[in-house]
């Protein structure tokens, strides 16, 4: 950090804080309007509410199964992320430990999958899901998100190469088998990368709109994002109600962000620096 006079520092603060506030206006806008009536919103959409009116929250909570959608999203996210981390780390362990020609070949073939967008496999998967009765099913969504295991594999594999080999060798001399070595030695050692990958995959699955919008039909299976998207039609003119639902739906991911903020930033750093 280079020295600068307090004037430039102050100027930087003022400019950057105004930029940040401008960026945050959309969030301010949806939050303040949840405490207003429809008429107040239409008169002054950016004004502060005159009172802490919670009618909108009660109204939305009573009419929209927010909790159910939350439960669905939570279930799908937890299951998919656990599978992705487990399958990805197992494969990374197998391939890094073996280092044979065939495992290198598998590694290269897997790399191809990273270039395949979900849109490309969407139609055949949809067709297969029709015959497997996985349409309109939360488990079907989990199956789709398992594809994220390949991306997880690459990040975990890169990290695993940096583990000191002596640890593995010591465990091996003590007669540690492959399964125990994976579970007791390797998994604890790669915890940092599991956290990073877990966070990024959680945000992806939690926010995904494409898969639920195509594969989920009945309202009782809606994820949070889909629930908000479907409700906007119902609330075309009741803006405060729509914004209340939006705010409710953003609470979990915001809490998650605040809780994991430190890890998100260090994850970005690790990704950027490794190249």
């Amino acid at each position: 950090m280079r020295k600068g006079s307090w004037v430039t520092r102050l100027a930087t603060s003022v400019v950057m804080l105004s930029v940040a506030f401008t960026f945050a206006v959309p969030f301010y806008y949806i939050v303040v309007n949840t405490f207003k009536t429809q008429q107040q919103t239409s008169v002054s959409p950016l004004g502060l509410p005159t009172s802490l009116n919670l009618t909108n929250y009660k109204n939305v909570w009573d009419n929209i199964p927010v909790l159910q959608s939350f439960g669905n999203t939570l279930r799908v996210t937890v299951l998919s992320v656990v599978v992705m981390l487990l399958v990805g780390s197992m494969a990374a362990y197998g391939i890094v430990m073996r280092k044979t020609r065939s495992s290198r070949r598998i590694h290269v073939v897997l790399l191809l999958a990273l270039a395949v967008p979900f849109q490309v496999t969407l139609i055949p998967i949809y067709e297969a899901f029709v015959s497997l009765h996985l349409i309109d099913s939360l488990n079907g969504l989990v199956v789709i998100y398992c594809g994220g295991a390949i991306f997880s594999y690459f990040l975990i594999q890169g990290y695993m190469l940096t583990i000191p080999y002596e640890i593995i060798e010591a465990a091996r001399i003590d007669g540690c088998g492959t399964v125990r070595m994976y579970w007791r030695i390797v998994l604890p050692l790669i915890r940092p990368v599991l956290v990073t990958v877990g966070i990024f995959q959680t945000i992806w699955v939690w926010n995904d709109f494409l898969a639920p919008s195509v594969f989920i039909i009945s309202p009782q299976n809606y994820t949070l994002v889909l629930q908000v998207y479907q409700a906007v039609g119902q609330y075309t003119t009741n803006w405060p109600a729509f914004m209340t639902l939006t705010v409710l739906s953003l609470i979990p991911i915001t809490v998650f962000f605040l809780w994991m903020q430190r890890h998100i930033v260090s994850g970005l750093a690790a990704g950027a620096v490794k190249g």
Partner: protein
Amino acid sequence: MLSASPRTPQGELTRDVRPRPGTSPQVVGPSGRWQLLRVLGPARRREQVSLRLFVIPLVIIFIALFALPVARSLYFSFTNFGGYSNKVSFVGLANYRALFSNATVLTGLAFTLTYALGRALIVTVLAIPLAVVLNRKFVGRNFVRAAMFFPAVPSAAILGLVWAFILAPISVGVVNSALGALFGVGPVPWLSTNFLARLSVVVVGVWQQLGWHAMLYLAYLQSIPGDYYDAADVDGASSRQRFFYITVPLLAPAMTISIVLLVVFGLQEYALPLALTGGGPGYATYTVSQTIITLGISNAQYGQGAALSILFLLMVAVVLVVQISILRRREARLR
């Protein structure tokens, strides 16, 4: 479970376990030390085989969710498969020809490319100076960082809906109210004319991604040693020179990652334009993803939908290869 493994042909194992010329056990560095495993001899054979089992679940996922579906998409793209009848016949390139004479498809391709490249360009140009500023000390820095990063956290679908309200020509549309109050301009049809709708989608996309990419650059900036700047100070470099001759070249590897992510995810964009404009006005902000879903799922024209997804795959692959080779060459030149 593990004892079932020694059925694997012995020949392959011996070949695999034998040390390769050039890999001496003294090799240092992480991967070199891991390669020690291969010279440990036949005592490790059983372990090698059981390690193979660890890879199987991922291979199954690869086959079930990538290899087979891509192969099937390719197959569908040459047939008239409609999803309902079992009578499938080959139609050659008819699906591909139909796509190229379909105005919706072509608009979608053009808009998707414009969005992906335009957003990548704007975000990159803004994120690097932003990261430099965020690296300085000033009051409220942590708040600014968090506030600018936060738009990347919620779902693009939800943010698109929120922006649809903000840009609306009605009283809740604060952008138009503000413009009206400040400059007396009538409501601007942000989302209902072709050009402005496309522009709005790109701007909201930039708003969402800018902070995230600035943090990526920031993380990288923090790993640049201060010595470079000290040396530049001694030589009397201006701050503009420092930015263009030290910061930007040193950020080249981060630029590769950031731009590739922006373009690849930009090409796959689906939720944001759909939520913001519904693909409209008309088909002005239709994306390739939306066209694939409309054709392949809603209209059950599997053949055409599959043909478009194959074209899309080729497009993504070409863009990836071109981009990575250009950016890598740039990295090498700047080093």
